[in-house]
């Protein structure tokens, strides 16, 4: 093809330079198009990321601009900081409970809606997904009113089913505060998980179910032997998304409790903010950020790897 175009140019050398000049122009186009994205991304994401790692080695304050190299001192301090361990443990509690409740409940609800419901499917989907599009700030403030220790709806509800509400309040009792926050998180995001799983279920071949029905399989057997294996990748993806959300949580905790009472609901995100912007310990905050970054990168890497696999398998 190229030869027919080149017949008027007898010299092989000119031919080669012409081709490569054209190729170079194409390369240049490629670089120019990608440049705005690269520049913004490197300046505002990559550079700050390395900057965080660098700053974690300093005693550094944002307001007084003090900066003193302390090596791994911040990380040594972290290991002896009960509040840091508390926040890490809270992140892990949120992670475990979110995966169990959101994915568990989401899976059950999706299965019920997919196989058991004919009328109102759309309505169930809309209503369950609605909290997902709300801001965590609005959700947090709304639930703060619901959790009000004297006149909140949560107290009414609990009394109505014959139980006594916690005396120190839902968000005031250090022993239950993290679970009160988790109720809100699950309220907001179970619908999200459910919709993703439901989408996965709807692509499971109906013929498999029909064949199983001929064999007289119960719904429960079909769920465990057809549905679950068919949506394995979807389930893994949702679990990872939920885990990443649990590690990154900030808005909801900040709005509901600011990490209190007495640091009982502190998570890494809020503890970073507290150190950097409330007590002017930005170097220490950077050290916590590095820990959070490691968790996020590992989980994010798994998620990216996984997101390619279904395409290859299918």
């Amino acid at each position: 093809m190229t030869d027919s175009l080149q017949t008027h140019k007898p010299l092989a050398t000119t031919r080669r330079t012409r081709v490569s000049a054209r190729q170079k122009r194409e390369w240049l186009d490629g670089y120019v198009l990608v440049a705005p994205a690269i520049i913004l991304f490197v300046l505002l994401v990559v550079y700050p990321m390395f900057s965080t790692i660098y700053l974690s080695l300093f005693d550094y304050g944002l307001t007084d601009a003090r900066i003193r190299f302390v090596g791994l001192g911040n990380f040594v301090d972290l290991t002896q900081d009960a509040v840091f361990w508390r926040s890490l443990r809270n992140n892990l509690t949120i992670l475990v409970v979110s995966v169990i409740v959101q994915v568990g409940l989401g899976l059950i609800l999706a299965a019920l809606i997919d196989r058991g419901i004919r009328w109102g499917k759309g309505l169930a989907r809309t209503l369950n997904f609605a909290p997902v599009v709300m801001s965590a700030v609005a959700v947090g403030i709304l639930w703060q009113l619901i959790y009000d220790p004297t006149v909140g709806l949560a107290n009414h509800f609990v009394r109505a089913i014959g139980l006594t509400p916690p005396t120190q309040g839902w968000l005031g009792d250090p022993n239950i505060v993290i679970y009160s926050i988790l109720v809100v998180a699950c309220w907001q995001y179970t619908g999200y998980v459910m919709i993703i799983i439901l989408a996965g279920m709807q692509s499971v071949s109906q013929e498999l179910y029909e064949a199983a029905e001929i064999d007289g399989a119960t719904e429960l057997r079909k769920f465990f032997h057809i549905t679950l294996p068919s949506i394995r990748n979807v389930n893994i993806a949702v679990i990872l998304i939920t885990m990443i959300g649990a590690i990154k949580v900030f808005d909801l905790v900040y709005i509901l409790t600011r990490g209190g009472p007495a640091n009982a609901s502190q998570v890494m995100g809020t503890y970073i903010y507290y150190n950097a912007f409330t007590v002017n310990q930005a170097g220490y905050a950077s050290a916590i950020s590095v820990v959070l970054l490691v968790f996020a990168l590992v989980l994010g890497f798994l998620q990216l790897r996984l997101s390619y696999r279904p395409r290859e398998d299918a």
Partner: protein
Amino acid sequence: MRLRLSTVLVYLLVGVYTLLVALPIVWMFLSSTKTMRELFTAPFALPSDPQWSNFIRAWESGISHYLANSLLVTSVSVILIVLVSALAAYSLARINFPGRVFIYLLLIAGFAIPVHTVLVPLYRTLNGVNLINTHVGLILPYVAFGIPFSILLLYAFFLEFPAEIEDAARIDGCTIWQLVIQIVMPLSMPALVSVIIFQAVFLWNEFSLALIVIRDDALRTIPLGLTKFQGQWSTNWTLMLASLSMATLPVLLLFVILQRHFIRSLVGFSK
């Protein structure tokens, strides 16, 4: 038709759970037009005498500015995200230049970096160029953090873009910019709509960055503005709930109208 016990049970379970999810939102909207007394005496009754003045007071206390700020910041950011990401994704998907794979992986890996881990250096950088407490200082990081996910989505779409259309445009003498902006992008609306909805919902609700970048009340976006009321109206629930309703209504309405697109966009990544 046959009405089996198990079917009834399934409807009951799904119905009760869905009701529990809907209840707080319903309560929020119902209460926003009540008097304080009615709010507590009849939490789930319709307001007997709707107090629209709650909305007017909330609107005049700052919600109008916050909505305008959110609208401005969100729309400018989304437009920039779409443009920058589409150009880059096209280049990465269709032009075979050296370093392409490296650049793609670099951009995609950024997807995993939570904004909370870079709040300190971002604050430092923005402060250094006097962009703290400006909308530009908010928009720039919004765009940067929106790039990875948008490129991921658009790249997959552009890979399958028909080469014949490209070739025809090239023969007609289109520059590469014209090709991407005037031909490829308009023909990629489904993917662009997904990116737009995802980023718009995310940025409309974004709080962490706004919290460290914006100081002036006049510049606050909706989530940041709501936190002001959180302190101010902690005992005036009807006003608080009217503000929450106004802040939430635009997204909820759009969601109900464009439901199919919303769901496809927001769950798209895992599919």
